[in-house]
């Protein structure tokens, strides 16, 4: 240590801070990668059980090593660059898809103290990052120079842009209640048991947020961007091997992200539901896991939406609901019942 301190001289504190931050980033990204890998297995298992099948059970006990096997398989597959594609953008697409999906985790509070960047505009940062994620899809679809990929990316972009508005409005309700954009403060605003959590006064917004989250991540029943029966696999149809896997990782990272956000915003984050149990990160993980389970459940039970119905749901139903509820919350805050909304 002393040797290093001498080597960097006056820059030593800065170097220390940087390396400490890097370690924290790894401490977030590594468990996240494992969570993503096992979400793929959980998805196959859960849907399997719902359809009275067994699901993957060959690699390791109960198929527990299946994600590793899949990862190794994808790593060793050839990455094909289509001749007619735009090579630079074709390779940039997966990067732009996964970078925001991971970057957004910087402000998620796992615990009262466990947060990488405790910034005041945390919620805005997350909204900005999730809206940037669409570039991966749009660039991948265009650079592939393929009709299916292009159609898929167009659908996906229109859908994400539409549902972002409803999602943003749903979160506006939360920040009205919490009086802050800082995610840590939003969680602390819900302290005192599950009857203080925001999902009760903001129930319509919670539902709108969660359904919009499913649409934002392009998951069933809103997965027209992939639409296997119509456009094969949508925007990533031309990708193979690890490049395809990156899109896959980004999708599942986004699922975890929107569930983490829903748990933070509406379900009290790391707070315990009843006052006599201690607050801990385990509550946060449990809430997140429960919400992720809904994603799998939706996929196993709902048929795919028709495209015009998706647009109608987003623009003509969700946005009016959120607008009305925001005005209602704002009006109620001025009355003597305002304490219910804080």
């Amino acid at each position: 240590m002393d040797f290093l301190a001498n080597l960097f001289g006056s820059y030593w504190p800065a170097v220390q801070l940087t390396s400490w931050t890097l370690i924290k980033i790894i401490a977030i990204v590594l468990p996240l990668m494992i969570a993503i890998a096992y979400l793929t297995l959980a998805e196959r298992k859960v849907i399997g059980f719902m359809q009275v099948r067994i699901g993957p059970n060959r690699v390791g006990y109960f198929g527990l090593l299946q994600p590793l096997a899949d990862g190794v398989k994808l790593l060793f597959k050839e990455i094909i660059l289509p001749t007619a594609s735009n090579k630079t953008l074709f390779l940039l697409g997966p990067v732009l898809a996964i970078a925001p999906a991971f970057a957004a985790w910087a402000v998620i509070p796992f615990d009262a103290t466990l947060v990488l960047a405790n910034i005041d505009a945390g919620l805005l940062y997350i909204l900005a990052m999730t809206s940037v994620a669409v570039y991966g899809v749009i660039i991948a679809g265009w650079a592939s120079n393929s009709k299916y990929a292009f159609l898929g990316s167009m659908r996906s972009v229109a859908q994400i842009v539409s549902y972002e508005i409803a999602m943003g409005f749903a979160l506006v309700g939360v920040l009205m209640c919490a009086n802050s954009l800082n995610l840590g403060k939003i969680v602390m605003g819900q302290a005192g048991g599950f009857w203080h959590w925001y999902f009760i006064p903001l129930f319509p917004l919670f539902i709108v947020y969660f359904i919009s989250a499913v649409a934002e991540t392009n998951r069933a029943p809103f997965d027209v961007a992939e639409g296997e029966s119509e456009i094969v696999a949508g925007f990533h149809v031309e990708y193979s091997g690890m490049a395809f896997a990156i899109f896959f990782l980004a999708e599942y990272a986004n699922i975890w992200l929107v569930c983490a956000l829903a748990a933070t915003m509406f379900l009290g984050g790391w707070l315990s539901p009843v006052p006599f149990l201690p607050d801990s990160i385990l509550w946060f993980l449990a809430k997140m896991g429960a919400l992720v389970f809904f994603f799998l459940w939706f996929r196993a039970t709902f048929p795919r939406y028709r495209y015009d119905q998706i647009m109608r749901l987003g623009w003509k139903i969700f946005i009016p609901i959120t607008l009305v509820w925001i005005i209602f919350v704002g009006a109620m805050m001025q009355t003597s019942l305002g304490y219910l909304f804080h």
Partner: protein
Amino acid sequence: MIFNDFIFYTLAAILLFAGIRVITTRNPVYAALHLVLAFFTAAGIWLLLEAEFLAIALVLVYVGAVMVLFLFVVMMLDINLDKLREGFWDYLPMAGTIGLLMAVEMVMILSGKYFAPTTVASKSADYSNTAELGRVLYTDYLLPFELASVVLLVAIIAAIVLTLRDRQDSKSMNPAEQVLVKKQDRLRIVKMDAVVETPSVEDPKADKEKS
């Protein structure tokens, strides 16, 4: 401070490069993507100025929404660049004058005594840029702010009204009507005997082909 300067000049160089590429590149998709890069770096410079709300809002609004729609349109349309370039030399004198005027104005503003760079007192750690901006916008500048939003709303509605063509031949469904459909409206149950006598086959040709 040296480190800050270094970051500022790096970002400024990227910003200038991206800005120049926006107007020089031949491919409209590349131009739009360079504009995205320009917005990103501008947001970075704002972050250096500790204006985190503006920086994030820039990324959220311009990169996340406006440029996505730009790209969407640019990718969908088959833009003929040669046609766009046709009048270049005719427009050059006019555009050059306007550009020069803008440059002169910018220099005047930046070098004028009212806009001379002053050292801003650094804020305490719990100072929230977002809350401060919100307070000013919704108290001191409430009317101008509301006015600006009404102007925007009018522009949005005007754009829709101007481009709206009421097509007579387009087919659409009324979901409310669809939901209200009853079984009697669509389905007729016909009573039939469980066993229907099959008519005996008397076709010698078919028999021959079989054997």
